[in-house]
């Protein structure tokens, strides 16, 4: 699906186990590779990830399964705190 990159801003991010992760705040681009490197996620679910003093997280694009009304990423066992 081809879409404007600004469509991503503000989209909610969930894992494939329907767990809320956060919201897309920005997109990191790899200019030489001509691809999206990662998504910058803010408003992070504190129950899922302990941010300590950080303000957000970066999700590599390879973890993304699909993007439409939300962004769906693979649920990583071990990377997230057990709910």
């Amino acid at each position, binding site marked *: 699906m081809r879409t404007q*990159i*600004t469509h991503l801003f503000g989209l909610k991010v969930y894992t494939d186990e329907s767990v809320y992760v956060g919201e897309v705040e*920005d*997109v990191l*681009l790899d*200019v030489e590779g001509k*691809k999206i490197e990662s998504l910058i996620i803010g408003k992070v679910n504190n129950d899922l990830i302990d941010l300590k003093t950080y303000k957000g997280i970066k999700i590599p694009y390879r973890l993304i399964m699909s993007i439409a009304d939300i962004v769906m990423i693979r649920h990583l066992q071990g990377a997230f705190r057990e709910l």
Partner: protein
Amino acid sequence: MTRILARSLSKKKIMTTDGKMIGTLKNIIVDFDTGMLVDLIIYPDPSFDTAGYRVDGDRLTITFDSVKDIKDYIVVDRSLARR
């Protein structure tokens, strides 16, 4: 390796490798399936001759393949931008 945040590209100026100003960046078209950056959507400067380029209303589309680098300006190869 150039990595750049999408929001920092807002209204960035686009210049050809031979020093001609094309206009300002409006948006980037991405393919969500592959994460590849496909096209740049540009508001062309009134002085820029858009003949030979893909024009849709007041907007100009050039392929991301023509992008050489992004720093203070987005530099594109004019021979690759035309089609």
